[in-house]
């Protein structure tokens, strides 16, 4: 009768076994303590039962060695769990260097995905098997959370910042994709399916779907022209704004002396609130593009800016992140998980 009930989720990413092993370890530890204490409680309650209510218990007041023992042992066990957990956590939040980049926005009540090649989909996400994929996303309205149980990954989508998850799928098939942060009426309808495909099938799917508007990079370039970004951001650095060649992934100094690493969040901020973190040596001339370009457009522009730090700019761009991997956030709103730079998507 119980055979039809799932008791354990499918492991479909490289992260899943890591999380599950940790889970089983904690399960074993907690089961041990739960059974030990329950057994003692039941044993004592039965063995020392007295239904007259007139006897008194033994005059025992306590034992310092025992107290110290059962403070230290749980603490040491907790330390082991803590260390292991932290190791797994950093695995979950730190994507490898080369990832397939997918962008997404959450909006009540759907997930939109955009592949670098330009393919778009709603409440469905096609990814290739065996290749690290990084999904960068934000929200257009309230809080959401992108959650794929089979991959054991999850992160909140917060309006105004970027979050990301990464995974390498290990099993073809269809998996649930949920919104895990309550977002109003149809929260439970903000779900979708992740399709893990053989790399060849994925390539076929990418080209099959009839892409409109070209790749994200091409769309970004187009926007870059349309919005007249080119008038100031000249490639030779003589414009009124800084040149964007090779800037992605580098560290720049701001007008107030702080430094910031140019990542997705910083580029986004610079487009929408250009006055907030001005690069040193430039005048606050840039107007805001809030309302002129939507989240998808911003993501395309980011892909384009990334492409400007392609092979020729990579060496320089990589210096900062390699020197201080996972450096603490310079600016808090930039989204703390988003502090690494992967260089350019291939």
């Amino acid at each position: 009768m119980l055979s039809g009930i799932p008791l354990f989720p499918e492991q479909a990413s490289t992260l899943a076994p890591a999380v599950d092993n940790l889970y089983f370890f904690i399960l074993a530890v907690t089961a041990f303590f739960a059974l030990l204490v329950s057994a003692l409680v039941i044993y004592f309650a039965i063995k020392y039962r007295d239904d007259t209510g007139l006897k008194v218990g033994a005059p025992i007041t306590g034992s310092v060695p025992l107290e110290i023992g059962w403070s230290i042992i749980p603490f040491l066990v907790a330390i082991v769990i803590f260390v292991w957990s932290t190791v797994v956590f950093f695995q979950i939040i730190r994507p490898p260097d080369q990832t397939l980049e997918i962008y997404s926005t959450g909006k009540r009540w759907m997930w939109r995905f955009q592949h670098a090649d330009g393919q778009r989909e709603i409440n469905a996400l096609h990814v290739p098997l065996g290749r690290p994929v990084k999904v960068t996303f934000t929200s257009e309205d309230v809080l959401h959370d992108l959650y794929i149980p089979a991959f054991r990954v999850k992160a909140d989508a917060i309006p105004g910042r970027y979050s990301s998850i990464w995974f390498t799928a290990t099993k073809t098939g269809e998996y649930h994709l949920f919104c895990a942060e309550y977002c109003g009426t149809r929260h439970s309808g903000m779900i979708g399916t992740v399709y893990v495909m053989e790399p060849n099938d994925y390539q076929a799917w990418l080209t099959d779907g009839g892409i409109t508007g070209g790749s994200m990079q091409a769309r970004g370039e187009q926007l870059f022209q349309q919005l007249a970004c080119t008038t100031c951001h000249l490639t030779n650095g003589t414009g009124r704004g800084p040149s964007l060649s090779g800037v992605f992934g580098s560290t720049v100094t701001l007008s107030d002396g702080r430094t910031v690493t140019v990542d997705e969040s910083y580029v986004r901020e610079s487009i929408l609130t250009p006055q907030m973190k001005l690069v040193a040596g430039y005048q606050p001339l840039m107007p805001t593009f809030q309302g002129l370009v939507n989240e998808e457009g911003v993501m395309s522009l980011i892909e384009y800016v990334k492409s400007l730090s392609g092979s020729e700019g990579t060496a320089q761009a990589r210096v900062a992140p390699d020197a201080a991997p996972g450096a603490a956030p310079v600016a808090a709103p930039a989204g703390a998980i988003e502090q690494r730079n992967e260089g350019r998507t291939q």
Partner: protein
Amino acid sequence: MTTLAAPSPVNYLNVKTTVASWLLTKDHKRIGLMYMIVVTFAFLFGAVFAALIRLELTTPGGDLVSSDTYNRLFTMHGVAMVFFVLIPAVPAILGNMILPLQLGAKDVAFPKINLLSWYIFVVGFLFTIYALVAGGVDTGWTFYPPYSTQGSPSHVAATGLGVFIAGFSSILTGLNFMVTIHRMRAPGLTWFRLPLFVWALYATSLVQILGTPVVAITVLMLFLERVAGLGIFNPALGGDPVLFQHLFWFYSHPAVYIMILPPMGAISEVIACFSRKQVFGYSFVAFSSLAIAVFGFLVWAHHLFVAGISPYSAMVFSFLTYAVAVPSAVKTFNWTATLYRGAIWWKAPMMWVLGFMGLFLVGGLTGLFTASLGVDVHIHDTYFVVAHFHYIMVGGAIMGYFAGLHYWWPKMTGRMYNDMLASLSALLVFVGFNLTFFPQFILGYLGMPRRYHMYPPEFQVLNVMSSAGAMVLGVGYSLTLIYLTYSFFKGAPAGANPWLATGLEWTTQSPPLPENFRETPVVTEGAYEYSKREIKVA
């Protein structure tokens, strides 16, 4: 053993019987009873919402109510249970009843403020009832912006105001208790002779005083943002919705300790009495309460592990969360050791304690999963978390409340209840609770997110099990309500000390005199000196 003079026919219940004498009373015992009435009412509300939620979740398709209604159900369930049941249950009901008695005092330090707290609480509750009648609120009890400030079409402002107002009731109760414990102890009642329930209430007061004002101001900011359009958490202006989460959990995590510390104190009392033994490691249990209260303020961001906080601060908060687990473990081990070589009297309060031990154990240990950074990414905001905190809040706090209530009931009302029914009720609640919430751990690890009206069909079997368990749980609680109500009016007279327990509260008559004691008692020994006393057959 003190011989009692013939009980006075006048007690706090019958000294005056007009409605005004209740509504204007400054007697801590009457105020405690008045809290019990309001809290029981709120509990019934919350329970009805819970029943509807479980009924809805028996099918995956969301057939019973609309999504909007479902969202209102779980929100109102959370608001009613957290702010109007769990937080006031033990401190405001049992604390008010018992604390001055245990201290040998005539009343709390500020009786008028105590009455004021009750009125504030009722006004806060009425705002919440208004929000409910007007159409409910659908933000979840956590009120996260920007949904609560901009997106939600429901009555967030009225509910927020209700919670804000009720917060002051909690603050004033904490203040009152803290001053009472410092200044109103009977002669000879030194700190280390205090019953552990007093220590627990002291630690709770600390949390109420330091934490509740922060959530009050946070909810006020949220209220002003929604009503007047202020922009403190508005991402469109550059505001940070996550700041709200920090401020909210700075209170609301310690609030868990407001809920669980006083029941832990009650558990210590009951265990000592029904094991006829001193609580093992008295000072360790006492200080573990304070340690929990203090450490409790340093762990709030473990609710934000996937909310984009820096991974390094996540590490710190995870570590501190494991640190706070240690004093809770110490308490559990000490309770277990107290049973060793006791003379364990199987009476109803003890049955509730045994139930508490089992459920709190599971609740506490599953906290090790949620505190783990690596596992929490997967289980955050899933049914695993729902199950975990219900084990703590219902399995721990409510079971502890019932243990204390059954223990002190004869003192409060002067009457006994049916011990067999009470033990049966404890068993039903224990079984029903496990049936309801254990499957939710599995659902959570499978990946079912919380606050889902509809869910994928493969989760149905476990959900049906959970709903079936909820029915058993409902029967258990209803039974308690019935026999306790019967006992209040028709129960057999209890006598001053039916459990032959130690503690000053048992030296006065049941129900106590309006001024508690004929003359101020003088204390000459520590708490729980069962081994020194000779218990004679009456």
